[in-house]
């Protein structure tokens, strides 16, 4: 086997090894790139920023541990922004695993960075309910009918934050962090469109292209994957430099992802060079 032929059939263990190094080394050397917010992400930030203090923001955690590296920084950054702006935050989940992920955000961001915020006044954890889009349809008109208690089992009417809430149209903004179905698409179709409620949020990089048909009329902004999360963090730090230390999880993780992308591109180029050289040689041999 010639060198070129070997380049066309590299052992996948070599590829796996180099991808592992491409992730580990940038993490060890803390390789960080400067990230700039794109218009599709900036529009989410601008919307949260423009809402008057005390606005009602519903945030739905529709993902599980598998996509935490992409989704959790989005959830943390948007929650942080809502807390900075003193919005009232209503946390729920359409995914069974979402409630646990929401608890992480509550612990790390709300309780960790904003200890003055009061549960039941500034934010509430409604938790998970089964039903997928059926749930969204039901809470559209009667949220308290489905959520008779908060996640800890306390009567929903005992919290001041729930006063004046009947259904989804009472919210000023719906944020969804999703990684599949039910997720962003269902929130747009069963809540945003129906009640003319602004919907925005973030999804995994794989899912983001599927949601572009909704942007910008039905979906006011979208974070796609880790890059989207990093862009939101960057937008937050530009406006609020005090959060430079805490709001950089995704920005830091973009280093390993960038190098991993480079390694993939390198292998694709090598494979194509080898392919063209071999094809040219075969053509020459046939013509001779």
């Amino acid at each position, binding site marked *: 086997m010639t060198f070129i032929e070997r380049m066309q059939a*590299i052992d996948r263990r070599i*590829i*796996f090894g180099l*991808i592992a190094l491409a992730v580990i080394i940038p993490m060890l050397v803390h390789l960080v*790139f*400067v*990230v*700039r917010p*794109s218009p*599709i992400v900036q529009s989410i930030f601008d919307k949260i920023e423009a809402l008057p203090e005390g606005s009602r923001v519903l945030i739905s955690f529709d993902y*599980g*541990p*598998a*996509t*935490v*590296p992409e989704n959790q920084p989005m959830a943390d950054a948007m929650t942080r922004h809502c807390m900075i702006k003193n919005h009232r935050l209503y946390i729920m989940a359409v995914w069974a*695993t979402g*409630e*646990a992920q929401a*608890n992480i955000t509550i612990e790390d961001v709300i309780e960790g960075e904003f200890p003055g915020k009061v549960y039941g006044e500034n934010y509430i954890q409604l*938790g998970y*309910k*089964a*039903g*997928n889009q*059926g*749930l969204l*349809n*039901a809470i*559209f*008109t*009667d949220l308290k*009918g*489905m959520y008779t*208690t908060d*996640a*800890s*089992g306390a009567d929903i009417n005992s919290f001041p934050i729930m006063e004046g809430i009947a259904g989804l149209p009472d919210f000023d903004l719906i944020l969804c962090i999703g990684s599949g179905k039910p997720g962003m698409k269902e929130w747009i179709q069963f809540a945003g469109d129906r009640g003319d409620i602004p919907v925005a949020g973030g999804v995994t*990089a794989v899912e*983001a*292209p*599927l949601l*572009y*048909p909704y942007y910008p009329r039905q979906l006011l902004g979208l974070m796609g*994957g880790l*890059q989207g999360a990093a862009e939101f963090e960057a937008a937050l730090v530009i406006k609020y430099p005090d959060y430079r230390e805490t709001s950089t999880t995704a920005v830091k993780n*973009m280093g390993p*992802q*960038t190098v*991993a*992308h480079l390694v*993939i*591109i390198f*292998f*694709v180029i*090598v*494979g*194509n060079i080898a*392919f*063209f050289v071999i094809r040219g040689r075969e053509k020459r041999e046939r013509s001779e």
Partner: protein
Amino acid sequence: MRREIPLFITFIIGTALIVALFIPRDPFPRLDAEFSVWFDIIAVFAFILGGGNLLKIHVDRITRGHKDRFYSVVTIAGFLITLMVGLMKFGGDPGFKGNYIAEGTWFKVIYDSFFVPLGATMFSLLAFFVASASYRAFRAKTREATVLLLAAFIILVGRTPLGYYLTFWLPEPLQFLHIPTLSNWILAVPNLAGQRAIMIGISLGIIATSLKLILGIERGYLGGEK
């Protein structure tokens, strides 16, 4: 009657939900909300069905001595232990209203110590397989494959800060060649067109299937005749 009653229920609920969308006047919005609540209640029973199905498949594997039966033992043990811990709310407030995943509960420990790392590991493996698959599949063998390859290249670079660094120096008249701009253009124009076409196709299919279900033409969901 075993077939007529489900067909009747499907017809009434399907028609009411469609009418509620176009006539937002009482009683239709009320019916819409009421039916959605019923749907949510029924959806909860899907968990029991799912759990039963999981047990059936894996118990069957173990009893038949399947070569992967040890994985089935792990699956059943994991399922039953997690179920019991969650139902009994070990370490937390017992009773129906107690939070099964509150801090200090055993369920929370299982979630944090097993489910989170296992889920993250499974998803992380994708990076390795995507790299290997890209290397083998992305070959510019045809014109169409070359276009796909170029689009993938631009998206891969454009979705990282590298895209900015590579082309930020371009003068104003050539700004359209800026890689992040090109990446956004691919997502917002050709991708959008393709996605819309797919969505319209799927929606038409859903409408046709729904009408067949409501009108009782499609009866496959009722199961076999006896």
